[in-house]
C-alpha cells in the first residue's frame, strides 16, 4: 500500500455543502411567499434595532406625554395618529417591536433548550425515565397554555423577564414531545444502529447521529413559534398582565386603545396590524422553511 498512501488527499472542499445550500435556497425561492416572509422578518429586526434612533418621538416611549395633541388622527406629522396621552403611536409601535421580538426569541430559545434536552433524554433512554418525563410533559400539556402563562405571569408580577419565564414554562413541553418522537424514530434508523454496532456511546450517538438529523423539524417549529410567541406576549399585554406602561408593548397598546373604540379606531389599528404583520411574517418564513427542510412534508 506504500504507493497508494502517496495519493494526494483533496483539500476539504466545501463545494458539496455549498451546493446543498444552493439547492435549499433555490427551493426556498420557489415560493415567493416565504421570500416575502423572510424580507419582513429581516425588516422587523432592522427596525427594532434602529428604532430609538429613527422614530420621531423617542421620548414618548419613556412616558413623556403631550396632552395638547390627544387623539390626533393619522396625518403627515403623526403617521399612525396619537393616543389619549398625545403620544405618537408610530413611535410607540416601532419601539414596541423591541419587546415583542426580544421576548419572542427568548421564549423560543428557552423552550428549545429545555424541551430538546428533556425530549432527547426521554426518547433515547426510554423506560421509566421516559415514563416520568413524559407524564410531567403531558400534565403540562393538558393545561391551557395561555391561562397557565397568565397565572404564572400574574403571580410572578409584571415585567418582561417574568413574562418570558411564564410563557416558556408552558412552551417547552411541545418541544419535548416533538424531539422525543423524532429521537425515537431516528433511533431505529439503520445508521444509528450502525453507530451502536461500531461501539459508539450514547453521547456520540445523540450528538453526532440523532440530533443533527432532527434539526429541521425543530427549526421549522421554532420559526412558526416565533410568531406565536409574539402573539402570546401581546395576548398577555392585552389582558393586562405582562409589560406595564410606559414601556410600549403592542398588546398593552391595543388594550389601552379598546376603551376609545370606535371613535379613535386608529389607536387600535396600528399596534394590531404590527402584531399581525410580525406573526404573519414568521409564519410565512416557517412555511417556506418547512418546504425546504422537510421534503417529506412538501406540499
Amino acid at each position: 500500500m506504500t504507493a497508494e498512501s502517496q495519493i494526494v488527499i483533496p483539500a476539504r472542499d466545501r463545494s458539496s455543502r455549498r451546493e446543498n445550500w444552493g439547492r435549499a435556497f433555490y427551493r426556498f425561492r420557489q415560493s415567493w411567499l416565504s421570500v416575502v416572509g423572510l424580507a419582513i422578518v429581516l425588516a422587523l429586526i432592522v427596525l427594532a434595532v434602529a428604532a430609538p434612533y429613527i422614530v420621531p418621538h423617542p421620548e414618548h416611549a419613556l412616558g413623556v406625554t403631550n396632552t395638547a395633541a390627544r387623539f390626533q388622527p393619522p396625518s403627515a406629522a403623526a403617521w399612525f395618529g396619537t393616543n389619549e396621552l398625545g403620544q405618537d403611536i408610530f413611535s410607540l409601535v416601532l419601539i414596541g417591536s423591541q419587546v415583542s421580538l426580544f421576548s419572542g426569541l427568548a421564549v423560543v430559545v428557552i423552550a428549545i433548550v429545555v424541551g430538546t434536552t428533556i425530549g432527547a433524554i426521554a426518547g433515547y433512554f426510554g423506560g421509566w425515565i421516559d415514563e416520568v418525563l413524559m407524564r410531567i410533559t403531558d400534565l403540562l400539556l393538558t393545561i391551557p397554555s395561555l391561562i397557565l402563562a397568565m397565572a404564572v405571569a400574574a403571580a410572578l408580577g409584571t415585567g418582561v423577564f417574568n413574562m418570558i419565564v411564564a410563557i416558556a414554562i408552558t412552551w417547552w413541553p411541545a418541544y419535548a414531545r416533538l424531539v422525543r418522537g423524532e429521537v425515537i424514530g431516528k433511533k431505529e434508523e439503520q445508521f444509528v444502529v450502525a453507530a451502536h454496532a461500531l461501539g459508539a456511546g450514547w453521547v456520540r450517538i445523540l450528538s453526532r447521529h440523532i440530533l443533527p438529523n432532527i434539526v429541521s423539524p425543530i427549526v421549522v417549529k421554532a420559526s412558526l413559534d416565533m410568531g406565536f410567541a409574539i402573539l402570546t406576549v401581546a395576548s398577555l399585554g392585552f389582558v393586562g398582565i405582562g409589560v406595564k406602561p410606559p414601556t410600549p408593548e403592542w398588546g398593552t397598546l391595543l388594550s389601552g386603545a379598546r376603551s376609545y373604540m370606535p371613535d379613535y379606531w386608529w389607536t387600535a389599528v396600528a399596534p394590531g396590524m404590527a402584531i399581525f404583520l410580525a406573526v404573519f411574517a414568521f409564519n410565512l418564513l416557517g412555511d417556506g422553511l418547512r418546504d425546504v427542510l422537510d421534503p417529506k412534508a412538501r406540499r
Partner: protein
Amino acid sequence: MTLEIRNVSKVFPGQRKGMFGRGDGFKALDDVSLSVRKGQSFGLVGESGSGKTTLTRCILRLESVSAGSVLFDGEDIHALSAQAMRRLRARMQIVFQDPYASLNPRMTVHDIVAEPMVIHQDTVGFGARQRTDRVVELLLQVGLRSEHLFRYPHEFSGGQRQRIGIARALAVGPELLILDEPTSALDVSVQAEVLNLLHRLQEELGLTYFFISHDLGVVRYICDDVAVIYRGQIVEQGPCESIFDAPQNDYTRILLEAMPDPDPERSPFRTGE
C-alpha cells in the same frame, strides 16, 4: 473457531391484552446453534420473519438473548462488561442491507469511514492525519476514489454507498464481518460487482463472513457453509455443496425449487412447450 452460537433463544414479550394482562410472547429464535469457522463464509438463509435479523442483533448484542450464549473467540459476549464489549466491537463489524438508510446523511464520507477509528481511538491509536490517510486507503480498497472523501452520501449511487458501508466496516480491521443482505437492494449488475469485491477482500484480508440472505444464488456464490432458518429454528445446516445438491429438509427443498433460475429451460412452467 471465531463465532459460535449455542442454543440461543429469544422471546419478545407479547402485546398488552386487556387492562393488565399480556398476550403470549413471540419466540423469534428457538434454540439456535451454529458455528462459523475462521476465514470462512457462513451463509444464513431465511425468508422474512424467519428470525435472521433478530439473530444478527443478538450477535452484535444490540438485543439481549433469552437463553443460550454467543461466543466470540470463546468469550460469551452477553456476559462481557460494557467496556470489554466496546473493545470487542472493533473486531466484529456489520454491513447493512439498505445502503440508503445505513449512512448518516449529515456526515461526509470521510467522517463516516473515520468514525470507527475515532470511537476505537484507544485500540487503534490513530491521530487525525493518520485517520484521513487510512480512510483514503480504505476507499481505494473498496473501489472508490479519493475525490469522494468530502462528499455526502446522497451524491452516490446505491452500489457506491454499499462500498462506503464496507469501507466503514473494515476501518478498524475486524476479523468478522456480518453482512446483512448487503446486495438485496441493488441491481443485479451492481450486486455482481459488490459480491466480487467481497470475494477479493476476503482473500486479501483473511476475513470471516457471516452472510445473511434470502437469495440462495448469492449464498451459494459467497459461502462455504450454510444454515437455513425457518420460524426461528435452524432446519438444516452444513457445507454449501451438500445442502444445495442434496437438501434433506422439506423447507430447504421448497426454497431451492422456488428460486427463479434465469435459464428458461429450467422453468417449471415450460414443460409442455
